[in-house]
């Protein structure tokens, strides 16, 4: 989940535009992690050293890792370790943005170190990113005013996990707002009832983004004319997410919540109270998770 939050950080710092970020996310899966980026992220080499090696590589037919060891920038052990590093989402994203020329190695170095420092994320944690860290990041993005801030935060963390699990990890959460999205194609709605009550919605701006979402969830290869199945797929996603939420809440704080059957509306199913909209930019379009407060 770290990669998703890291994308959000890059946007907030205006290091990349939303369009560049989406292009980067799209390219992420085809990106091969370069040793230089890994070395910078691990703190073994500076951006300047990586540049120097790149220049030398143009003159000598040697691999980057070998040159780094030759120059004494890396030990053999460090090189082994870097080569062993598996594909890590946020590094792939950083690499893709550097490859596209949106970020320099230096900007990436500064951003990753600032980001890790700000949220006290160390190298091991970024790979096994835990719920607590995710909750902290969500809280830093939202300004839930009510006493139920913890309930909303847990909800949004679960949504992000389920989006990654069922829809895909090619997204970045955008800055939450207090307004409904301007363009509305459909609103998929379900109420959570009990000692904690909230209206949950997934709002789509276009038929295309809803179809893409439904296809990723269902794996059914639905077409534009399969309206009933498209609606059902999004309802099922929301229902599964909210069902898991009630289970978690019941287990963790012994609170029993109930759900209404999910419904689909052609416009916002307006509810009382204020609204928190949590936009999620996927490569196929932006979806909006909204909660009533």
């Amino acid at each position, binding site marked *: 989940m770290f990669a998703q939050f890291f994308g959000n950080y890059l946007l907030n710092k205006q290091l990349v535009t939303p369009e560049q970020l989406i292009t980067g996310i799209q390219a992420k899966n085809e990106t091969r992690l370069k040793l230089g980026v890994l070395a910078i992220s691990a703190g073994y080499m500076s951006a300047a050293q990586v540049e120097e090696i790149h220049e030398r590589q143009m003159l000598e037919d040697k691999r980057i890792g070998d040159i780094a060891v030759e120059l004494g920038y890396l030990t053999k052990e460090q090189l082994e370790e870097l080569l062993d590093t598996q594909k890590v989402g946020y590094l792939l994203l950083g690499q893709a943005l550097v490859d596209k020329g949106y970020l320099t190695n230096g900007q990436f170095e500064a951003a990753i170190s600032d980001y890790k420092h700000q949220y006290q994320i160390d190298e091991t944690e970024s790979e096994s990113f835990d719920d607590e860290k995710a909750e902290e990041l969500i809280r830093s993005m939202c300004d839930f005013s009510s006493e139920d801030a913890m309930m909303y935060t847990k909800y949004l963390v679960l949504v992000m996990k389920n989006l990654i699990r069922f829809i895909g990890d090619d997204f970045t959460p955008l800055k939450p707002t207090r307004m409904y999205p301007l363009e509305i194609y459909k609103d998929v709605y379900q109420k959570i009832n009990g000692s904690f009550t909230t209206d949950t919605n997934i709002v789509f701006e276009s038929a295309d983004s809803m179809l893409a979402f439904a296809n990723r969830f269902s794996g059914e290869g639905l077409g534009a004319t399969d309206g009933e*199945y498209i609606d059902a797929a999004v309802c099922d996603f929301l*229902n599964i997410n909210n069902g898991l939420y009630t289970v978690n809440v019941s287990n963790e704080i012994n609170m029993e919540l109930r759900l209404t*059957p999910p419904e689909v509306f052609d416009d916002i199913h307006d509810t009382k109270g204020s609204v928190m909209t949590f936009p999620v930019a996927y490569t196929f379009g932006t979806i909006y998770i909204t909660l009533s407060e």
Partner: protein
Amino acid sequence: MVLSNVTVLICDDSILSRKKMKDFLKVCGVKEIFEAVDGQAAVDEYKDKKPTVVFMDIVMPKKDGIQAVKEIVEFDPEAKIVMASSVGTQSLLKDALKAGAKDFLQKPINDDSILQVLGRIL
């Protein structure tokens, strides 16, 4: 497990959830599959078709799955009903078992778990 004599009633308000389960059960060779889109339709359909096994969602319009289980069991105390829901809280499971359900599947449902539950219940 021979399923060629087994009839199944799938009660779920989601057309997609019904389709996925139906597709899998067909491959497994069950004799016949019936569907219901809400709790009331589930009760009516059960009385009409007397299926071997029922898969019952909990959160449904008109009548929820637990109330439907109560009414089906009242009609047929031997009914073999499996709850299939995203809401698997202990208290709801307790309610469902008390109402007469025999087993539970947590959504999202994978095909293996359908076979396992059929193995337990038949």
